[in-house]
């Protein structure tokens, strides 16, 4: 296995996987606690529509992925804030509408373009040096922002109205969280793909949720689980010639079920009953 690390492409893949695993799993803590799970799914599909349009127009793919992702996540936040319609309904509409746009853009392409499909299903083993730089830069920006504003993010995840009442600029922090979700989706698009990125945001955080009663511990556990699944998933996919995205996600899912079975919270509840 060690000789694999001598290959440039494997070094890039493992680094990209570790970065994506850490960013997705840390932002996932706030997504899970604030109840924004489906906003992540909607954003992922919107970002893919952005990629498809960028290929159609000959633009850098991640530029329009960011635009589409941000537009979707902000509309989602605005709808929740105004309470005009149930959040699941509005996300459902945006989710399917952006997917329809993606299919439309793919249909408008005259030839089959395998690179576009790489963003749908993920292809971590083909990450280029330039893409790795983009992933690295965005990861530092997202993780740095979370580190700087972690106390406010925890507070709005716990109780947004209470946070606003006690002097935290809760509304601005909520929109910042949505922005970070969109950026995270874009970071992970190439490695795990639009369909599975949502799993990388949700599963490590949900696994950590089973294991602890502390917010800071949950974040730490989630990050370790995210990095472990991403890196091990890449190695497994290479060793057994499997697609990388599903390898990462299925490994994370297995850990999740293991955590549910061994959850100290659950065992404590059973004992209490």
């Amino acid at each position: 296995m060690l000789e694999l690390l001598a290959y440039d492409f494997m070094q890039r893949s493992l680094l990209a996987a570790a970065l994506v695993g850490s960013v997705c799993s840390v932002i996932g803590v706030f997504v899970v606690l604030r109840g924004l799970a489906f906003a992540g799914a909607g954003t992922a599909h919107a970002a893919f529509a952005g990629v498809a349009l960028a290929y159609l127009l000959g633009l850098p793919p991640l530029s329009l992925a960011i635009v589409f992702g941000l537009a979707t996540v902000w509309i989602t936040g605005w709808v929740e804030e105004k309470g005009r319609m149930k959040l699941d309904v509005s996300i459902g509409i945006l989710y399917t509408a952006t997917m329809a746009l993606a299919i439309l853009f793919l249909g408008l392409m005259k030839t089959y373009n395998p690179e576009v499909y790489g963003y749908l299903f993920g292809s971590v083993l083909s990450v280029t040096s330039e893409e790795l730089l983009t992933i690295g830069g965005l990861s530092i920006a997202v993780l740095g922002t979370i580190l700087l504003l972690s106390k406010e993010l925890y507070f709005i995840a716990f109780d947004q109205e209470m946070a606003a009442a006690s002097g935290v600029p809760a509304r601005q922090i909520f929109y910042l969280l949505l922005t970070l979700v969109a950026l995270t989706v874009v970071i992970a698009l190439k490695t795990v793909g639009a369909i599975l990125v949502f799993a990388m945001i949700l599963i490590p955080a949900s696994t950590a949720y089973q294991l602890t009663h502390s917010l800071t511990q949950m974040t730490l556990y989630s990050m370790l689980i995210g990095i472990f699944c991403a890196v091990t998933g890449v190695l497994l996919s290479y060793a057994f010639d499997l697609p990388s995205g599903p390898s990462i996600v299925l490994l994370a899912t297995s850990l999740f079920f293991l955590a549910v079975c061994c959850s100290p919270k659950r065992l404590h509840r059973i004992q209490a009953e």
Partner: protein
Amino acid sequence: MTHPIIRFDHATFGFPGTVALEDISLSIPESEFVGVIGPNGSGKTTLCRAVLGLMAPMSGTLRVLDCACEELRCHHRALIGYLPQKGMLDRNFPVTVLEAVMMGRYGALGLFRRPSGKDRDIARQALTQVGMDHHRDSALGALSGGQQQRVFIARALAQQPRILLLDEPTTGLDLTAQHSVVELIQQLHHELKLTILMITHDINMIRSRVDRLVLLKTKLFAAGPPQDVLKPEILSQVYGKELVITDKDFIIVEDYHHHH
């Protein structure tokens, strides 16, 4: 009378087409303990949101801490400790008691600043004041309803507030827990000289503890010492039922009185 810390001057609150509170004029001096009562939908929670600066008056003015409420900035809000109506807490939410109380420091600290040892000491002191310091490392979800209310009061105290706003702090608690929470609030008022605004339905529990009662029914129906406000003729106008005050000074609905 000392300088008012909260002053409503002909203030009306609501949304376009709906008036929730109309033409309220009321001054609350520093260190007063005020009970706010009234039937459901009488505007009690609106009053609370207005004082927090979450709602601006449609007409008239409201000044809190010498500042127009619509201009309350984050540092002002941090001086108002708030206990919202008890919602359903997800029992599995991963937060310890100390982490929840530390959140009370976040508004005052401001963005980008990490809580220091001093903030931790303030949070621990707030937990001691509500008698919960020994639970500081417990999961919040594992506590009883009454203990959780104590923790949330500690979070409000950790803000080192000048005003404490309590929105139905005893709702959903069993009788003993209700009593102990109200006793705690009264004790905090005595010890810390906080201005307290407590919204409640439990007139009997607070009548002997507050300095003044404010009775709302969209308008300010009455305000004054409990014995002046709690008169059968006033209460029956507001609650729409014949209320009687028993020989033990308990206020009950008349039907109940007849049957017992």
